[in-house]
Every structure is written in C-alpha cells, then in structure tokens.
C-alpha cells in the first residue's frame, strides 16, 4: 500500500463526507427550525441529479445543468412545503414519517414517469476532467477536488448565512422560540418555506454534483438519506457544526474502512475470503460508530438544544 | 421528634450561574403535614424534581426511609414509597378513572411483566381501585376517561392514584389549584385525615389551606429556606412578610 493510494482514499473520504454534509445540513436545519423529520429529503437529492443530467444533456453545459438541478430541487422543496409539509408541523413524528414516506413513493414514480425507467448519465464538465498532481506522488481527480472545494465553500457560506444575515438571525430565533419571532412580526410561514427550500437546494446540489461520478437513477437518494441520518445522530440533531463533523467522520471512516479492512484481513485469510469479510465488516463500521456515540453521548457530539 | 421519613440535607442544584436550590435542609416526620411555600420562581419545582428523581443534586444528600436516594431513578423512588401528585393533572388520558387507579395498584403490587391475565377481570386490581375511588368520591365516575373528567374530578383522581400507591410519604404539588371554594374545603378535610396514614409534604399556593393544615411551614425564596417553623412563627416572621407575604398579602 503506497502513500499515494492512502492519500487518495483519504481525500475520497473527505469528498464523500462533504457531500453527506450537504444532505445532513438541510435535514438538521429543517428539524432544528420546524421540528420535522423529512424522509423525502433523499427525493430532493434525486430531483437535483435528474434535472441536472437532463438540462446538461439538452444544453451540453454541466454548469447550466447544475443551476437547473439546484433550482428544480429548491422549487420542488417549496411546493412540497406549501402543499404537504406545512400541515405536518403540529403533527406527531409518526404522521411526519408516513406522509414523507408517501412523498418518496410519489416523487420516485413521478421522476420515473417524466424521465423514463432508465438511469441517466451525467459527465464531468470538460474543464474539470483529468487529475492534478498534489505533490508527494499523489495525483487526484480534479473533479473530486472541486467537490471538496464546493463542499467547503458551501459550509462557509452556510455559516455566514446563519451567523451573519437577517435570515440567519430569524432561523436561529425560530429554533429557540417560535412564538417570539411570530410576535416580532416575522412571517413564520414564509420563513419555514424558505428554510425548507434552502435545505432542498442543498440536497439538490449534492445530487447533481455526485450525479457526475455515479449513475443518476430512481432510488439513489434514500441510501444517502439514511447515511445523513447516521451523520445527524452522531453530530447531534439540529446542529450544523455537528452535521459537518459527523459527515466528515462518516465519510472518512466509511471510505477508509472499505479500503483498509480487506487489506487487514488479507494478512491472515486468503484473498477472496479477506475481501468478503473485510467488505462486510466495513459496511457496518459507521453504524458501530453510531452505536458507540449513542452509548457515550446519547444526544450526539454537539447537542443543539441543551 | 420521631425519625424523619424524608431527610434532605444541604441539597444544592445549579443551572449555569443560577442556584435554583441553595443548601436546602428539610425533613418530613411521621404524622405531620409539612407545607412548602414560596413565591413563583423560588425553586419549588426544582426541589420537587430533586426529591422525586427528575434531577440529581450537585451537593447534599436525600434520605428516604433511611436510604440515600439521590442516585435512584424516578421509578425506583416511587417503588420505595414516595407517592406524588402532579401540579398539572398528569393522568393517563385514554384510561378510565378506574384504570388509572388500577395502574397505581398494579405498580404497588410489583413488576409489570405479566403477559396473560386480563386486568379488567383481575379482582386484585379492580377491587382496591374502586375503594380508592370511593375514598375521593369518584366511584360513580369510575368508567369515565380521565381526559373527559372535570378539572376538580381530575384533581381528586390524582389523589386517588397517590393513595393507591399506599406510600410511606405523600408529596402533593399544589393539589388545591383551580379547585373552587367548595372543593378546596372538602380536600382540606380529606388531607387533614390523611396525614395519619402517611406524612405529607404539601407544596401549595393557597395560604388558607396551608394555614389550616400545616404542622410546620418552610418558606423557600431564591432557592433557599429563609424560614421554617409553626404557622404562628411563619405568620410573624418579618423576613417572610417582606419576602413573600408582603407582596402577595397586601
């Protein structure tokens, strides 16, 4: 195992973690502000990917596709919030789970109806193809490096938005005291729609960006959604900082586990057996991490509310 | 004086910079009603939570029937014989009055891991439940859901469930709240008798009730006991008048 390979996997882990962060940030924001669990968040990820792929294919330009994907996810989020989600804030978690589960069924089939049953392919934009030399013999995919850049920029942007803007102040107020911000004359309904659409846009962006390195298909969102749940449980629900730390932990541990465990087992098992055992155990690693966090800190690493 | 059932010594609890409970020492001895009064925000709720197990003290000890209970859970303290009523009626809303009391009888009789016998036909539960309901005058409302009882009836059901635990000490959190003059008078008579079964720590806003019932009164202000003594002592304590009666009784 060379240093270059190790470094490449580590960077892959960071890249994966940052994409998970985009998902988890929206989920945790929606929970923190509105107290809602949204299973359909993965559908918004899928919508972002599909619209990006379709628009990129139509225009021949990835960046126009990315904008289309982001806009489609945000619009879908806003519509869903106004039509369905809004009625669920005062309901129990069971109703929220069911209604958003129903939304997954509806949105998945709707995407199938619009885009057909086959996966779409989205290619990396030409200016980001190839790889760059990072020194020390490490060469790394330019596109994945750009994803890392995107992820960091979004994390900073989100932090600025929440810490420094009027919208951010309202979001923070909404997390601590709903009646108060209503009393201050903030249009709480509009605020909720904006927050939900913001979360949707982040999910759509993640879907579009990842769509270029995976295939774009119905059902692509839910595995990522469940990983984002793991991220939130580890990081602490409602906390953006927790989402970032949790996402990086999950991304790096998952990627490195898949990379290192089969190699570890091949030290004393034959190769094919080691691959099987290593892969199976690696797939469980992050859940073991989640269980550990639950035992040691049931509210996550960065509990947002007391 | 007799050996105290409940013995709280030097208990403190802080939330950040706020000392919600500050070096509180308090006892409850057999046969007495010990009233705990104090203005809003004095720290009564925190003290109750410390006694019942909702919170853990930062310092001090709480002995109940001779045993240190600071480390025990709410359920463990209840099983030791601490019977509480809630400030805001906190019953099982979809259970009838009788089932609410049956649940308390069941809890007293022991572990809940019985999977087969139908509770509705279990005379060991229904019989005692009806007796406790009768003691608070609710026997004819036995089959009404708790959520459909009137406010006063719910308060009485609270008392009946506390009775059903047959506890070694009662902790009543504002049992008079919202009771109306007639209901309050009845309840005062009832608690007056009840102290013979088990001592009562009575947290109450209704001063008439407190002065009518209490053997001892402790006054809580800013988390500290500022005075403790007989009804007479408390009425004439200048500090109490300033801190508490002054603002309320003017």
């Amino acid at each position, binding site marked *: 195992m060379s240093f270059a390979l190790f470094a490449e996997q580590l960077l892959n882990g960071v890249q994966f973690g940052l994409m998970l962060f985009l998902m988890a940030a929206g989920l945790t924001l929606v929970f923190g502000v509105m107290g809602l669990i949204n299973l359909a968040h993965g559908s918004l990820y899928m919508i972002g990917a599909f619209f990006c792929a379709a628009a990129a294919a139509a225009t021949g330009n990835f960046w126009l596709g990315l904008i289309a994907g982001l806009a489609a996810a945000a619009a879908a989020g806003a519509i869903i919030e106004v039509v369905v989600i809004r009625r669920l804030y005062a309901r129990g978690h069971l109703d929220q789970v069911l209604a958003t589960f129903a939304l*997954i069924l509806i949105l998945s089939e709707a995407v*199938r109806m619009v885009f057909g049953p086959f996966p779409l392919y989205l290619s990396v934009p030409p200016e980001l193809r190839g790889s760059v030399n990072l020194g020390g013999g490490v060469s790394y995919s330019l596109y994945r490096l750009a994803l890392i850049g995107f992820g960091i920029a979004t994390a900073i942007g989100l932090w600025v938005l929440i810490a420094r803007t009027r919208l951010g102040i309202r979001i923070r107020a909404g997390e601590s005291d709903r009646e108060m911000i209503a009393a201050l004359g903030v249009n709480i309904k509009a605020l909720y729609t904006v927050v939900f659409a913001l979360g949707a846009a982040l999910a759509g962006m993640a879907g579009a960006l990842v769509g270029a390195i995976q295939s774009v298909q119905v059902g692509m969102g839910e595995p990522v959604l*469940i990983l984002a749940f793991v991220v*939130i449980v580890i990081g602490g629900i409602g906390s953006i900082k927790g989402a970032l730390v949790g996402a990086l932990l999950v991304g790096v541990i998952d990627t490195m586990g898949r990379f290192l465990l089969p190699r570890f087992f091949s030290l004393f098992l034959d190769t094919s057996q080691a691959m099987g055992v290593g892969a*199976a155990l690696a797939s469980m690693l992050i859940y073991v991490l989640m269980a550990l966090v*639950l035992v040691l800190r049931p509210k996550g690493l960065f509990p947002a509310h007391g | 004086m007799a050996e105290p059932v409940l013995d709280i010594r030097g208990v403190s609890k802080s939330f950040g910079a706020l000392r919600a409970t500050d070096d509180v020492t308090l006892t409850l001895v057999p046969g007495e009603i010990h009233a705990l009064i104090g203005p809003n925000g004095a720290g009564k709720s925190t003290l109750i939570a410390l006694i019942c197990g909702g919170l853990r003290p930062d310092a001090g000890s709480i002995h109940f029937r001779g045993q240190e209970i600071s480390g025990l859970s709410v*359920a463990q303290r209840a099983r030791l014989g601490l019977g509480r009523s809630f400030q805001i009626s906190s019953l099982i809303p979809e259970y009838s009055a009788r089932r609410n009391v049956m649940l308390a009888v069941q*809890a007293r009789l022991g572990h809940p891991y019985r999977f087969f016998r139908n509770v509705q036909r*279990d005379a060991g539960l229904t019989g005692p439940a009806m007796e406790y309901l009768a003691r608070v005058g609710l026997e004819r409302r036995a089959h009404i859901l708790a959520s459909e009882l009137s406010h006063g009836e719910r308060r009485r059901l609270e008392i009946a*469930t506390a009775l059903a635990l047959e506890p070694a000490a009662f902790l009543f959190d504002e049992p008079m709240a919202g009771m109306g003059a007639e209901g309050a008078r009845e309840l005062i008579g009832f608690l007056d008798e009840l102290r013979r079964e088990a001592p009562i720590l009575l947290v109450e806003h209704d001063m008439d009730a407190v002065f009518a019932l209490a053997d001892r009164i402790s006054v809580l202000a800013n988390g500290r006991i500022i005075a403790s003594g007989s009804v007479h002592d408390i009425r004439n304590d200048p500090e109490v008048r300033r801190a508490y009666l002054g603002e309320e009784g003017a």
Partner: protein
Amino acid sequence: MADARRETIVNIVLAVALFVVPAVAYVIDEPFFITLATRVAILALAGVGLNLALGLGGMVSFGHAAFFGLGGYVAGVLAHHAFSGTPVFWGIPGTNQMIIIWIVAIVLSGMLAAIIGALSLRTSGIFFIMITLAFAQMLFFFTLSWPAYGGEDGLPIFVRNQFPGLNTMRIWELFLLSYAVLMIAILLFRMVRNARFGAALMAIRQNPDRAAALGISPFGVKLAAFALSGMITGLAGAMMADLTRFVSPAMLAWQMSGELIVIIILGGVGRLFGPVAGAGILVAFEVFFGGITEHWQFWLGLVLLGVVLFARGGLIGLIAGRDRHG
C-alpha cells in the same frame, strides 16, 4: 361501547374474509389467490409484531425489516445447509423443519431486537426513528456484502421446509398453517394488551412521567415490548421466506420497514385486526393497480398521504370510530 362492538364485528368479518377468499379459490382451483391470501396473512403477522411496539408502545420503529429479514435468512440459511448437508458452523447442522426454524428465528430476532432496542431506547422521538432505520440499513448492507449466502443475489430455498402432518408444497395447506399462526399471534397480542404488561406499556406511551412516578420504569417495559415485537416480526420473516422460497437483502431494505408501518397505518394503529386490514389493502392495491399501471406506487403514495392528512385511524377507525380502553 357501541364503537367497541362495531370493531368486534369488523374483526370477525376480516378473520372470516381472510379464510373464505382462499377457500373459495381452493374450491374453484385458483391457486394464485391462495398465494395472495397467504402473503396477506404473513405480512399481517409481521404487522402484528410491529403493532405491539408502535401501536401499544408508541415506538415508531422504521427498522422492523431487520427482524423480518433476519427471520427470513434463518429459514434460508438453515434450509441451505440442510439441502447441501453442510454444517452451519461448529458442526451444527441445517434443518428443513419449520418448527425448529421458527424457534431459531424467534430467539435470534428477539436478541437482535433487545440489542437494537437497548441502544435506540436511550433516545426517543425523531432520534428513535432514525436510529432504528440506520441499524436495519446496517444489516441490509451486511447481507448485501457478505458473500457466503448469495450476497445481493439472495439465497433460494430449493425445497420448501416441512411441517409435521402437512404437505407444505400444497399452497392451501401452507395457507392454513400461516392463518393459524396469525390467529394465535393476534390472540397473544390481545392477551398482552389486556394484561398488566399491556396496561403499563400503553400508559407509558401516553404519559411516561406518570408511569415512572407510579414506580413503573419506562425503559424496561418498552425494551421488553420491543423484543417481543421483534420476535413476532422475525417469525413472519421466516414464514415469508418459505412462501416465496427465496431470501434476499430486499427483505431488510428500508422499503420493507416502510411497508410494515404502512400496513399498521392503513389498518389502524394499535387495533387488534389493524394489520390484517392493512396487509389486505396493501396486497389488493398492489395486485389490482399493479395490473393497470406500472406506476401504482404513485397512487399508493397519494392514498397514503390522504390517509395521513385526512383519515387518521385507518380503515378500522373509519368504520368503528375512536379507539377506547375503558
């Protein structure tokens, strides 16, 4: 009390209908409908398990597919080793006897549920939902990447496992067996609900602080209910494996957990026969609308959304009114 009587009538109608439909199909030789009825019975059984945790205990588990799948893999793996004559491990042989398979499935599912429950019940609400979902996903990925039993291709059961006195290859006899197990499970559910344990469990769902103040420890009671719930759903998984003669990671997928919740909701949360009604509706929907359009899940989603937003209480709730525990 009129509502309770009406619910009893609905229950009897459901029990009779689930028997009569395949019986008629048997007489006129339409085995397809017997298979469907068996599927309904087994899904309902899995639902009865979940109903114990969700309906009585208020624990919204989005991970019951883990127990369903574990039960399925117990059946698949034991049958696989019985067929090939190889030991499972340490010389323990496989088996093709349903009774033994069921016992193993129940025990292992109960243990898994106890572990997942002990971790998940440290939290509540939204956390609980996400954690149960995540643990089920963990087992899903495990079966997907563990190559010994087929990985993502799944594991066929070449010869259906056996039950003394029955020919399980005949679908009608397999139906009778499934129906009997379902009815026993419903009776058990009813007994538990009416017993002290059920009284404590339902009280904890409604007001955990109250239960604790009475001396009933919420954690222990909920954990016991969760384990029991997992056992029943695990048994259903073992039976489903024998019906389809195939197990695959799909049994542990998150969609399966969602389907089980849907079954409970469509029928009516906490209702004795709710899972039967819910499983019946779901399978009927799938068969009839699935025959008309490949996008039937779109319509299922709309119906489900409508039920959640406008018809709380499910089918039995619509017919029999509010749920009461006098």
